[in-house]
Each structure stands twice: as structure tokens, then as C-alpha cells.
């Protein structure tokens, strides 16, 4: 990794420069909230946003995508181009950069890499930006408050300028061409350290995440799950807004002529009733079992394979859930055995 200082007033030029080669997606205000959306004007870019409603995962794993077009009669694939435009995700917080690394484990996995995900991931430039924790943030609990890879450029706010960490050739090239920048000094690095310390100190809550896999098994039959199950609306919002939820459905859609069609992949959620339904029944018929499964998989299932929990503490599900079910509350309930009010 190497570093540059980029003055804040150089950022619009950097954005404009990148936009000559990539479709730039960035955080923008929408009503009282923020969203990731294609950037029409660099002035709309709000690098001071707290959190977006939806994560940027749809640009890598879209909510709906065609896997292949087919002809029904001869059961054959009709060649289709894969849609993987060159995009820049400009302004991801550390949690969101980390969320993509967690998804990579699943989709770029040695055995059967997912070619659709892979092509988009490779064509997507990631520019991260530092943040200050919102009340719903708890990335510090999982160590996903820092990121050291998974980005091309990471901008840490040190006042009038950004301390830019550059970790790819294409990132370096873009900074070179579109931002004047200057080399770092010892003072800049001190400012970077200060900023990092202030960020860490700003988290208000502490979450006891010790021994979660053990607790999830040992307290598998705990009444807390029944209680959460009675609260849950099975709406699936928690999965939709989650940057690490990747489950999907695959189905076929026929054209009007019934002769051709496409095999489509769409986002799915383990909170939906049919998710684990089979011919002779449903392995997770109750809401309680489905809420439990979401946490069981994130805090233990995924971890059993990849040594990390499948949550980056972005707090989006905390904001989205109408029933007030969220990881900090569930983890507390697991630790204490009671659901706090």
C-alpha cells in the first residue's frame, strides 16, 4: 500500500476523471436518508453520509439477473452476454468494503467460482471513505471497523484533506491522472492516527460477542427464539438491506411465445416461509426457527467455514426491522437468556 494526500477540493475532479471510464455510484441524499445511486453531478456526492438504506451489493449481486437465455424445445442455452459494466463504487465505509470480502468467500470460492459475481467484482472499482459511527453502528464488535484490503483507494478524512491509501495499480493510476495530490508527511500520518483513535472512541455501546458459536448451540432451545419468533413479521427486510446476506432463488421465466425464456436469479431470504420447504414438509416452518437460523448461520454456520461472522455491524437491519430485532439485541439475549425490552 502507498499513500497520498488528496485535498477535499480535489475530489470533484477525481470523480469527474473516474467517470470518464467508469459509471460512478456514490452516496447521495434522498429525503432525510442516504442512498447509493449513479452520480450525475460530483456535487451530489455526500461523503459525509452516515449510512445508506440499502448497501451497494446490488451492483455486484443484483436483486434480479439473467443467468442465461434458453430455448425450450431443444433444452439449449442461447448464448447471452454477461452484463458487467465498469463501475466505481465511490464512498463505501469500512463495513461495506468488508462485506464484499465476506461475499467473496462464497462467490469466488475455489471450488465453483460464480462467473457473474466474479466478472462484476473484477470490473468494479472500490473507493472507500472513513466515517464516524452512527448510533446503530457496531462494526467494532466484529473488527470490521477497519479494512486493509478489498479497495482500490481508501480515503480517510483528516480535516481539509483525505489521507488516501492506495492498494491497486488501477487506483494509483486514477489518482495519478485525476488528482494532484501530494506525498504524505509524518504529520499527515499522525493526523491519520488521531482520526482513527477518535473513530474508535466514538462507539457508544459495547457488545459481548464472546463464545457465540457455543452459545448458539448450547442455547438452541432457549425461549428467546420463541419470543423473537413472535415479534418477527417474516418480511425479509433484514436480508434485503444486509450487505452480507447473499441467499438467492433461481427460476425460469418464459417469453410470450413460450418457446424461449430466461433463467433468472433473484434475492431470497431465509425469513420467508418457503425457504426450506420441500415435498414432504418444511424444515423451518415457524418464524422462531427462521429468525434463529438467520443468526445461527451468520454467527456460526458461515464462521465454521470462513473463521469470521457474516455480519459487518452496519446496523442497516437495526434500522429496517419493524419488530426491533437486531444483532446487538439478539446477542445480548443469547448472553443473558432474556430478551431485553
Amino acid at each position, binding site marked *: 500500500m502507498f499513500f497520498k494526500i488528496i485535498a477535499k477540493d480535489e475530489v470533484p475532479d477525481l470523480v469527474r476523471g473516474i467517470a470518464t471510464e467508469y459509471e460512478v455510484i456514490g452516496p447521495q441524499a434522498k429525503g432525510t436518508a442516504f442512498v447509493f445511486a449513479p452520480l450525475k453531478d460530483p456535487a451530489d456526492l455526500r461523503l459525509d453520509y452516515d449510512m445508506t438504506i440499502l448497501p451497494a451489493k446490488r451492483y455486484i449481486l443484483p436483486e434480479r439477473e439473467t443467468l442465461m437465455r434458453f430455448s425450450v424445445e431443444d433444452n439449449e442455452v442461447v448464448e447471452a452476454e454477461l452484463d458487467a459494466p465498469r463501475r466505481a463504487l465511490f464512498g463505501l465505509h469500512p463495513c461495506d468494503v468488508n462485506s464484499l470480502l465476506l461475499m467473496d468467500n462464497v462467490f469466488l470460492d475455489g471450488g465453483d467460482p460464480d462467473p457473474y459475481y466474479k466478472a462484476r467484482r473484477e470490473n468494479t472499482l472500490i473507493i472507500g471513505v472513513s466515517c464516524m459511527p452512527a448510533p446503530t453502528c457496531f462494526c467494532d464488535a466484529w473488527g470490521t471497523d477497519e479494512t486493509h484490503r478489498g479497495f482500490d483507494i481508501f480515503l480517510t478524512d483528516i480535516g481539509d484533506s483525505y489521507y488516501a491509501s492506495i492498494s491497486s495499480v488501477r487506483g494509483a493510476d486514477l489518482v495519478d491522472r485525476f488528482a494532484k495530490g501530494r506525498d504524505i508527511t509524518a504529520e499527515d500520518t499522525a493526523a491519520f492516527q488521531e482520526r482513527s483513535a477518535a473513530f474508535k472512541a466514538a462507539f457508544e455501546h459495547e457488545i459481548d460477542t464472546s463464545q457465540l458459536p457455543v452459545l448458539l448451540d448450547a442455547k438452541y432451545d432457549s425461549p428467546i427464539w420463541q419470543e423473537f419468533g413472535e415479534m418477527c413479521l417474516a418480511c425479509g427486510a433484514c436480508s434485503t438491506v444486509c450487505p452480507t446476506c447473499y441467499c438467492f432463488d433461481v427460476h425460469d421465466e418464459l417469453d410470450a411465445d413460450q418457446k424461449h*425464456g430466461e433463467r433468472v436469479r433473484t434475492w431470497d431470504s431465509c425469513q420467508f416461509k418457503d425457504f426450506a420447504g420441500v415435498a414432504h414438509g418444511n424444515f423451518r416452518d415457524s418464524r422462531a426457527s427462521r429468525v434463529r437460523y438467520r443468526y445461527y448461520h451468520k454467527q456460526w454456520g458461515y464462521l465454521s467455514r470462513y473463521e469470521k461472522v457474516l455480519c459487518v455491524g452496519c446496523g442497516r437491519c437495526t434500522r429496517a426491522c419493524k419488530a426491533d430485532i437486531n444483532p446487538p439485541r439478539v446477542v445480548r439475549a443469547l448472553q443473558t437468556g432474556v430478551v431485553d425490552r
Partner: protein
Amino acid sequence: MTASTLASPVQLNPYRPWPARITSIIDLTPQEKLFELRLIDDATRDAFDFEAGQFVELSLFGVGEAPISISSAPSKQGFIELCIRDSGDVTGAMHAKQCGDIVGLRGPFGRGFPFQEMKGHDVLLVAGGLGIAPLKSLINHIHDDRHEFGKVTILYGARTPSEILFRRQFEMWQHREDFDLMLTVDRPDETWEGEVGLVTKLFDKIDLDPDNTYGALCGPPVMYKYVIAEMRKKDLDVDKIYVSFERRMKCGIGKCGHCGVGHQYVCVDGPVFNYWEAMNLQEAI
């Protein structure tokens, strides 16, 4: 802004089914047919190596996909057999296919039975209903390498005599000396002269060497607890028992999340699990 697109992900696309021709269809029962399939592409066919207990995704464009166990033995080259019950969209559409029709296959997926490890030992295979489909692959594989195994005991239960799959072959095998095969039905008809009752009843009639026997089991979910209890009564080691599970599946490659059982995915960590592992999986049995 330029938006470049990559070439289509044809090569190495695990979602892309390979065309296969139906080379034979046999009616086994009113609900089940046995399909023999041949992958059309030579290189794909040659590369299609599998273990007994693995499955494929059967793909009918316009309808969808369904996971189906391979019923034929790995020792049968060039063709694979699928024993399919008409139980929904894909399986129903498959039942309407004719010999010569083209369907799609992806796979083979998952972990099968530990055939190599079982060699040199006795084996006890227990099937209920359609659970015979994956075990049939193992049975045929053992048959082809019969001299490498000790005593082979097969217990198979079906609801009624007309629902016994591969009935002709099994009835013939009941008289063989090298396979100890027992059939039972829950509800007999007037033609039935064999055993009546659940498959667990047959355990009274068998003799096992617990130190030298591998157990394998596949059937409807309700069956597992009871059959395993019988196996344990016979002192079979928990880590020498293998079970095969069915879950909802969409991808077969550990990505779509549908087949989760406990902390694992059935499509990649199973469908065949060592019972010791399965005991540690929530919701498994």
C-alpha cells in the same frame, strides 16, 4: 462513460447445464420412473466422475431444476441413471419426456458414501421408500467389486408392494448368497408373502459384527431416528454410520443458501454425512 461487457461465461459456468439425451425410460411404479441418460458432449461425459451418494441438478428449461441422486454405480461408464418420483414441476415434466429427448444436467455435486473406506468391511444398507435411489448406486458399486467387501446386508422398506422400487431385481436377489437382502412393506396386498412392518422390524432378523460394519441409511426424515436407534442397539459405532439428507436446493454449489442444515450446507458438506457429524447438526435428525 464506457460500459464494457465481458464475454459470456460459458466455460466454467457452474450454473450452465450440459445437454444429455434420454436413452431409456423404465416405469418402476405408478409414481417413479428410471431414466437412463447420456451426456452428449464427449469431453463432458468422459470427465463426469462421481461417487455413489452424489447428486445432479436436473434442468428442464422453462420449468426449472431439481436435485436428483444418481442411482447407477460409478462403475457403469457413459450413462447415468436417475430414479425420479413425479412430485412437482420439474419431476412432473420429466415424467412427460420421451426416449431421445434432451434434458440438462449439472454436477455431480456433494459428498457421497465413503466407498473406499468401506472396502474390506461388512456393510449394512437401510433404505425407506425413495431413499433407495442413492443407495442403489452404492449397492451396484459394491456388486461390481463384491470380492472387496465382507458381508453385505440390505434392508429395504416400502409402504406397499407396488411401491417397491427395483422390485424385480431385488426379488431375484433375495435368493442370492452374497447379498443378505430383506424387503418389508407397511401395508401388504393379497400377492405379498414377505415381511410386513417398518424397516426397523428387520433388525431382529440380522446378525452384525459391530466392530467391522459400516452402516448407510437413506429414507424419509421420520425414519432416521428409529433406524439409528436400531443400529446403535447392534453396537455400530456412530462414526461408521452414514446418512443421506434431502433439503431444498437451488444451486448445488454452496451459494444460494437454501439447503442449510445446522451450520453446514447439504449440497457441499453432504448430502451424505457421517452420523457423528450429523449428530452435531441442528435440525438434521
